[in-house]
């Protein structure tokens, strides 16, 4: 037998089993307590409360296994992959496993949040422990029945076998197993023996999706439910002055017109706050209709007068302010190694470039919506939100209710991308239902959705490198962004540790435009900037760009730095794999390549984009993507995430043009905002580094590097460096500046 991993966990606080009245057994476990203490979260989750248990496994007397998947599903595949991990160690046939989305239950679940590509990373060890513990208890129960030692028994595919060859199914012994003590240590499988992990398993909701069954928040209905649309100020900086609802009220489908905002104001004034509450509590007009269309029509019939309260900001002004910030001295230093100033003073040459990115809306395919039913007895909430625990707490505070009165059921989400980390639409729905004491569904049009955003902040970077005797001696990254962007640990990403004199500074401009996390927060543009810069730097140094990266990473290997987040070996590994698989440097005539290598969200990625130029416009033909995410739990889901990340990244880097004119968003629907479509997508070839290291997430890390791979390929094709996104708007040549 292959050597296996023996683990001892403090199990008392982490696992519990009991017999079910309906027959069978249930095992609950705590994900968060079992998470590694040094685990770092990408967003401030301190506001969330963690209680006892997390996921549950139910084993029936027929041997069927139900796994209650605790994490919200936003399309990242955890509803499939997390149960796969449990089923692997429990050793049951995947066909015998039934997966259900657990409702929000702060008493029974922890870290019920989807964000930062962390679900699998945090869940890996405890999910395995749980499966293995359940299996051990079943084996112990069978051994006791046979009167033999448990070590003489083995279990596979839901069947326990003893030395004589007698067999018992899991279902045969669940009742006895439930009464046993939870074992203190269990043996985990050797990854070589995995039969479920590493096998492609289809999306567990596939049949419902392809036949159009109700799954999403927008599909949810209850008897007597009304529909609510919200009229918000058209510009950031404006508030409601007055409105005339007589025309709206005259429509047959309009039930009521109310205003909301008071509850949020009171909440904010009380000194309470939650990072999931992005709004200030300005008055909004709400139209309640019998159907979605009635509510939408009613909203159009409202005549509102708005007044300006704070500045009406424009992107043009932002551009200027951010460039000024980059030239100024109002920086916070985030990391400082050596002496950058001196390195620059002693340099033979300094390369300095500015990179610019726009605001971005999330544009989840399913517009923001939520169901709320507030009554004197309880507050029932149903819908798509990435942070149900925080949302329940805020709603309780907002409506001055006990947390016990508030329940949230989660639906499948038509995309998240960070937008559904924020609960503004949940809070609006709760306030509306509270006001009329009826069940309502808050619905958004695409126009609402795109203009009520919590946008990716517009950011600019100024990157400088000093060159002395053909070597990079200093690297200085300055960030200027709207409302702040860079997160605490990002300064420790590559090239931190690889260059002796290294400094990262940030500055921000406080705007009244709401900004927040957007797929691969903080790095989604930073990677484009840095990897474009390195491409130019290699050229300036007259060295091969692949070799330059290998050498920089060798520097880290030779001078290990405890304060870096990435592994130089793993970054070199993906770089070499991408080079090999992409036929780097050996393309056909007319095809141009660009390279980008990056670490973020605990995963190492290298990408090569192959492009052609058609009538002066770049067209991406193929992307080779090499990924080191440790063990690949579900190759099907992993492929979807990786390819989706790459194509999403190309779409936004190439086409996404968003901004503001006098506080009003420039675009409000897909006719004025370009999303990537099939005709613009290349084939993405994915290659994994084979690994037995614990898995890391895939929802985000393939997105950030691709912008630079494409920009570098455009340079190879045209000789033009494009340092401003969207790339398609900035195809004209840029002057070279070398100080």
């Amino acid at each position, binding site marked *: 037998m292959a050597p296996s991993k023996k683990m001892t966990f403090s199990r008392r606080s982490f696992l519990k089993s009991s017999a079910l009245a309906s027959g069978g057994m249930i095992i609950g476990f705590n994900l968060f307590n079992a998470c590694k203490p040094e685990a770092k979260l990408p967003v401030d989750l301190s506001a969330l409360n963690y209680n006892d248990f997390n996921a549950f496994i139910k084993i029936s007397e027929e041997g069927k296994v139900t796994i209650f998947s605790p994490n919200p599903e936003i399309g990242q*595949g955890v509803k499939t992959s997390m149960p796969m991990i449990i089923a692997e160690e429990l050793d049951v046939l995947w066909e015998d496993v039934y997966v259900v989305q657990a409702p929000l239950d702060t008493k029974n679940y922890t870290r019920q949040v989807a964000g930062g590509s962390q679900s699998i990373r945090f869940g890996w060890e405890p999910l395995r422990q749980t499966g293995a513990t359940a299996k051990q208890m079943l084996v112990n129960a069978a051994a006791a029945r046979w009167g033999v030692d448990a070590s003489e028994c083995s279990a596979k595919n839901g069947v326990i076998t003893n030395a004589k060859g007698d067999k018992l199914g899991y279902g045969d012994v669940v009742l006895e197993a439930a009464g046993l003590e939870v074992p203190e240590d269990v043996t985990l499988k050797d990854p070589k023996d995995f039969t479920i992990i590493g096998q492609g398993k289809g999306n567990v909701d596939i049949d419902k999706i392809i036949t159009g069954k109700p799954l999403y928040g927008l599909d949810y209905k209850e008897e007597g439910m009304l529909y609510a649309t919200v009229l918000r100020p058209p510009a950031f900086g404006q508030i409601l002055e007055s409105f005339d609802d007589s025309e709206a009220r005259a429509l047959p489908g309009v039930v009521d017109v109310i205003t909301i905002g008071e509850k949020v104001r009171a909440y904010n004034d009380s000194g309470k706050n939650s990072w999931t509450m992005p709004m200030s509590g300005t008055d909004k007009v709400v139209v309640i209709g019998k159907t979605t269309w009635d509510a939408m029509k009613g909203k159009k019939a409202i005549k509102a007068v708005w007044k300006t309260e704070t500045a009406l900001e424009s992107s043009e002004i932002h551009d200027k302010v951010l460039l000024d910030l980059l030239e100024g001295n109002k920086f916070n230093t985030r990391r400082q190694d050596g002496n950058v100033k001196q390195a620059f003073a002693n340099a033979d040459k300094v390369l300095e470039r500015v990179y610019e990115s726009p605001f971005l809306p999330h544009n989840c*395919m399913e517009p923001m919506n939520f169901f709320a039913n507030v009554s004197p007895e309880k507050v029932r909430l149903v819908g798509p939100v990435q942070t149900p625990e925080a949302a329940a707490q805020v709603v309780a505070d907002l409506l001055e209710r006990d947390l016990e009165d508030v329940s949230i059921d989660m639906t499948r989400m*038509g995309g998240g991308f960070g937008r559904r980390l924020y609960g503004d639409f949940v809070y609006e729905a709760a306030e509306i239902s509270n006001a009329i004491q009826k069940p309502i569904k808050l619905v958004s049009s695409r126009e609402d959705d795109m203009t009520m955003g919590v946008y990716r902040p517009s950011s600019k970077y100024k990157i400088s490198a000093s060159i002395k005797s053909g070597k990079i001696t200093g690297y200085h990254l300055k960030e200027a962004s709207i409302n702040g962007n860079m997160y605490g640990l990002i300064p420790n990403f590559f090239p931190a540790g690889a260059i002796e004199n290294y400094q990262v500074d940030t500055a921000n401009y406080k705007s009244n435009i709401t900004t927040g996390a957007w797929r691969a927060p903080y790095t989604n543009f930073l990677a484009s900037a840095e990897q474009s810069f390195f491409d130019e730097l290699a050229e300036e140094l007259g060295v091969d760009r692949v070799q330059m990266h290998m050498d920089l990473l060798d520097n880290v290997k030779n001078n290990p730095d405890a304060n870096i987040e990435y592994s130089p070996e793993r970054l070199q590994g993906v770089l070499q794999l991408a080079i090999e698989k992409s036929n780097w440097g050996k393309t056909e005539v007319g095809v141009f390549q660009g390279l980008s290598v990056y670490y973020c969200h605990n995963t190492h990625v290298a990408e090569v984009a192959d492009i052609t130029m058609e009538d002066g416009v770049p067209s991406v033909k193929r992307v080779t993507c090499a990924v080191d995410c440790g063990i690949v739990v579900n190759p099907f889901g992993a492929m979807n995430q990786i390819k989706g990340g790459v194509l*999403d990244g190309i779409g936004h880097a190439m086409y996404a043009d968003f901004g503001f004119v006098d506080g009003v968003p420039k675009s409000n*629907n897909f006719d004025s905002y370009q999303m990537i479509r099939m005709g613009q997508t290349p084939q993405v070839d994915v290659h994994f580094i084979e690994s037995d290291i614990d898995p890391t997430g895939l929802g985000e890390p393939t997105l950030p590097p691709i912008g630079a791979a494409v920009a570098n390929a455009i340079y190879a094709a045209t000789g033009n460096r494009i340092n401003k996104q969207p790339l398609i708007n900035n195809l004209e040549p840029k002057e070279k500046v070398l100080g």
Partner: protein
Amino acid sequence: MPTFNLKVNNEKHTVEADADTPLLWVLRDKINLVGTKFGCGIGQCGACTVHVDGNATRSCLLKISQAEGANITTIEGLSEYGDHPVQQAWKEVDVPQCGYCQAGQIMTASAFLKTNPSPSQTEIRDAMHGNICRCAAYNSIEEAVKVASEKLS
């Protein structure tokens, strides 16, 4: 409010609604067929695609008054057991990420393959260009259309 007679998935429905109500909202809110999705409301994303007399049609742009007398098919009625070749292909390729756009993608693909059962790659890409997938599952959608066309021919 006027009443309209609709034929959806071979069933007759009498619906009371304003004449300008888009078919999309009639299907979703009145007939309880929520498989047809709302994405943009202006004909740009394809999430709301249904078949009207066999043609892929944006139900967000079709008013109920224009839909009377037509044979309307939604994702729920594409096949009796969810086993239309396009649905099978979607399952085999494991296309969906969030899945929200997929009903529209499937309806576009199935209408297209009816007129062109063995399309070239370029024809597939052109035919599917009107359907946005925010999760960018485009590689898989493209492959699934190909797989479906092999099943059909």
